[in-house]
């Protein structure tokens, strides 16, 4: 504790996190703030009631350019990229020929081409995958000199409006450039908390001053990875490497909504045959929301039983501060996946009754114009 692990990378905001009294953990090769002195619960609640500032600079920011960039991207993801208007954002997946998920990502249509935001732990693999399949068709740039901040919560728009009044009209899942703290910042109205909010791509040299400016605003508090996880879990949003991975398909994961009618019909992405078949016939298991009856959290890896048969496993589980109790995501056999189904969770050898609920655990409050 207190020692700096020299093998870990630091984001451009590292010194600011230290100044703010953050507790650090290694995450995806980066030394990241897991919480600040107020703690995870207070940070979680602050984000739901005001606005939280998250450093997510460890995530990968990529720029893809080239005449054929849209067609090239559609050859690797089931999302509808062709129908994306300028400045619009799509949540989609890099898929495998067997239908498994290589990563989940955000794709933005920009004047230059496409902007991608990929997960930190998977970014090296994603880049290799993109290069292997798209070499010669598109140019892939890794935006190493950009920080990524997320400003999330009901007051986020009010805060940004102070500096960039035009932000108010930005639709959900849309992106535009604004001026903030003397820098040009790409603001995208999206996030990972279920709240209204923005992700801000900022030149690394300006990142600390922009973050400091936002933290000066009375509504804004710094939020670590601990609350980021409890917020996304309550919002029912999958975490790559836990709820989705190479062994799960988009249909099993409840992500069929990310595949448009045209792409379902046409296919043309890795694993299309399997994904189309699962869309038509269903899957053996499904990712569901689970609420234990009692107060004991059921963590990742907890077995799910019905009667004397194991029917699944928890993939993310913990305490939902806004929900006020334990919540979990997990895969269960289709027969037991309908809302209201009763299951047992095997926590430290003891069965705890739980029920399947309709996601999310806490309603989304995204901006709808």
């Amino acid at each position, binding site marked *: *504790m207190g020692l700096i692990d020299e093998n870990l990378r630091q984001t451009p905001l590292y010194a600011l996190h230290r100044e703010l009294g953050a507790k650090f953990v290694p995450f995806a090769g980066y030394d990241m703030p897991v919480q600040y002195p107020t*703690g*995870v619960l*207070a940070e979680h609640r602050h984000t739901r009631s005001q606005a939280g500032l998250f450093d997510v600079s460890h995530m990968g920011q990529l720029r893809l350019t080239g005449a054929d960039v849209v067609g090239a991207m559609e050859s690797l993801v089931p999302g509808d990229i062709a129908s994306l208007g300028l400045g619009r954002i799509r949540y989609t997946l890099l898929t495998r020929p067997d239908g498994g998920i290589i990563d989940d990502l955000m794709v933005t249509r920009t004047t230059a081409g496409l902007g991608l935001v990929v997960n930190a732990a998977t970014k090296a693999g994603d880049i290799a995958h993109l290069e292997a399949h798209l070499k010669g068709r598109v140019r892939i740039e890794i935006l190493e000199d950009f920080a990524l901040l997320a400003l999330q919560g009901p007051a986020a728009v009010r805060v940004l409006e102070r500096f960039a009044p035009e932000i108010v009209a930005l639709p959900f899942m849309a992106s535009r450039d604004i001026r903030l703290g003397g820098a040009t910042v790409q603001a995208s109205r999206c996030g990972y908390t279920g709240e209204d909010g923005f992700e801000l791509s900022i030149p690394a040299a300006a990142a600390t001053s922009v973050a400091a400016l936002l933290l000066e605003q009375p509504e804004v508090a710094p939020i670590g990875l601990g609350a980021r996880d409890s917020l996304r879990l309550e919002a029912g949003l999958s975490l790559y490497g836990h709820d989705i991975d190479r062994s799960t398909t988009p249909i099993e994961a409840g992500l069929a909504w990310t595949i448009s009618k045209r792409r379902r019909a046409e296919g043309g992405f890795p694993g299309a045959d399997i994904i189309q078949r699962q869309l038509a016939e269903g899957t053996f298991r499904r990712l569901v929301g689970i609420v234990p009856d009692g107060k*004991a959290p059921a*963590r990742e890896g907890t077995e799910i039983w019905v009667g004397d048969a194991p029917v699944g496993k928890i993939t993310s589980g*913990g*305490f939902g501060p806004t929900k006020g109790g*334990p919540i979990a995501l997990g895969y269960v056999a289709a027969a037991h996946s309908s809302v209201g189904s009763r299951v047992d969770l095997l926590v430290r050898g003891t069965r705890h009754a739980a029920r399947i609920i309709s996601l999310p655990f806490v309603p989304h409050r995204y901006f709808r114009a």
Partner: protein
Amino acid sequence: MSTTHYAKSHEWIRIEGDIATVGISPYAQQQLGDVVFVELPQPGATLVRGKEAAVVESVKAASEVYAPVSGTVIEANAALADDPSLVNQDAGGSGWFFKLKLSDTAEIGELLNEDDYTALIAELE
């Protein structure tokens, strides 16, 4: 007059006669962060020194609490079921975990005193 002893695994033990009250240290609660659930042993349960006795869950993770001495549980702190945050607010007092009847008072000699435990934490920090 009771004395507080500590285990290297960050539990505290207060002994009066052959009854020990056990909790986790202020340092341990600070490391855990916000406590949201505590699983306590049932009265009558036999605990063995160094073996799992309770589980404390923060928002982030579940952590095991070990029995600093061997004995039979006579009471678990029922207040923690309603308000697990007592562990954060008052780890050394109202946030106690359980009381047990010692089975081997000689084990007390293996524990750390206040000064030794303070020195241990100083090393960790």
